């Protein structure tokens, strides 16, 4: 259940962030692209959280209950995905770093046989994330290999977010147990593949890979940055104020 919550929470929190771009993106096509990616992620969230909720040892929960009625410290998403949107380049940098990780992870989950329900969800997710990763990579290249202004701004975006990338590959008990069972990938092997993908796109974009410094972690334990609380307050206000409301 904890492994599935991570998959669902990563998708949910990033989807909510991308949804904030609706009506605000620099071009109509990009407005549509970001919200389409959000929609795919919401779909993945519904599937993963429904499955996670059905396995809750206390009492089965629905995807909506998990999304709208948990507190900040019960969310197990990466700190990376909860970071605020910033400017368009910041959003694309966040998306790029996450997409490459999410694609590799989903490919593993799609192929494992420990949890076939999760495999079915991930098989679908792989097809979707492949489009997301292609899109964010192309933007990294366009901005990095663009004007001096776009180059320096996207470089800064990547530098700023780099401290959140270590958490993706920091294995804790859930990761280790999940990896032994087969459901989750071995994170050190995943990092090797992620490095190759990231380095290749950054090179084409004429961008410099930042040095690994102190990495920020805590999301997987429910210890989040300030950004998540305010995001959840907006996301959850309706079902918390009017329990059971429907339309």
């Amino acid at each position, binding site marked *: 259940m904890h492994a599935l919550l991570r998959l669902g929470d990563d998708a949910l929190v990033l989807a909510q962030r991308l949804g904030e771009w609706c009506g605000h993106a620099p071009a109509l*096509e990009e407005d549509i692209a970001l919200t389409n990616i959000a929609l795919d992620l919401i779909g993945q969230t519904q599937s993963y959280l429904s499955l996670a909720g059905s396995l809750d040892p206390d009492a089965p929960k629905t995807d909506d209950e998990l999304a709208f009625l948990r507190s900040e410290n019960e969310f197990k998403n990466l700190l990376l995905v909860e970071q605020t949107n910033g400017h368009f380049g910041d959003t694309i940098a966040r998306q790029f770093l996450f997409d490459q990780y999410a694609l590799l992870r989903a490919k593993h989950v799609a192929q494992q046989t420990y949890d076939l329900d999760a495999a079915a969800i991930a*098989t*679908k997710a792989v*097809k979707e994330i492949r*489009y997301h990763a*292609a*899109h964010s990579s192309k933007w990294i290249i366009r901005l990095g290999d663009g004007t001096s202004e776009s180059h320096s701004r996207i470089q800064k975006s990547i530098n700023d977010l780099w401290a959140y990338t270590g958490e993706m590959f920091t294995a804790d008990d859930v990761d280790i147990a999940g990896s032994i069972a087969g459901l989750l990938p071995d994170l050190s092997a995943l990092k090797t593949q992620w490095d190759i993908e990231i380095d290749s796109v950054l090179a084409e974009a004429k961008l410099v890979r930042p040095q690994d410094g102190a990495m920020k972690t805590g999301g997987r334990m429910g210890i989040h940055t300030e950004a998540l609380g305010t995001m959840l307050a907006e996301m959850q206000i309706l079902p918390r104020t009017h329990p059971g409301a429907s339309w």
Partner: protein
Amino acid sequence: MTDRSPSSLVKAVSRQLQDVMDPELTFLSVVDMGILRDVNFKNGHIVCVITPTYSGCPATEVISKDVLKAAREIDPDAEVEVVLSPAWTTDWISLEAREKMTANGIAPPEGSSHDKAFLTGDGHTIPCPICKSKETKLISPFGSTPCKASFTCNACLEPFEHFKCF
């Protein structure tokens, strides 16, 4: 309906579902789209098996309700079962449906979903569904619904949508 045998119910429901249209592509049925995977008879009632196209596609919910409503006109106890595996692919869209898409101004998916180049649109031309020119340009890999990309035709200058290979 006088014949209530399982096989005749399955046949009748299958026929009925050919008229259930995709809410976002109203000229195509759920059968054309490959969304309806199976109709069978289980535990004394009809079960319609459907599969979602994209995980978050809002049409899936509507399709599920429409299929249930249509099936219950034949068998009041009919149920809908949503399965994720095997994952839906554009390879399941019938040839006839692809022709209907072109006729309705949507460029159908080209090639097979196993060909990675078709997924990204690199190195492949999507012909304009209006003037048939191959001088077209990808504007965005995303469009008005999760399944479509936005293109423009350099020959007739019309924008059009392409049903992505998936």
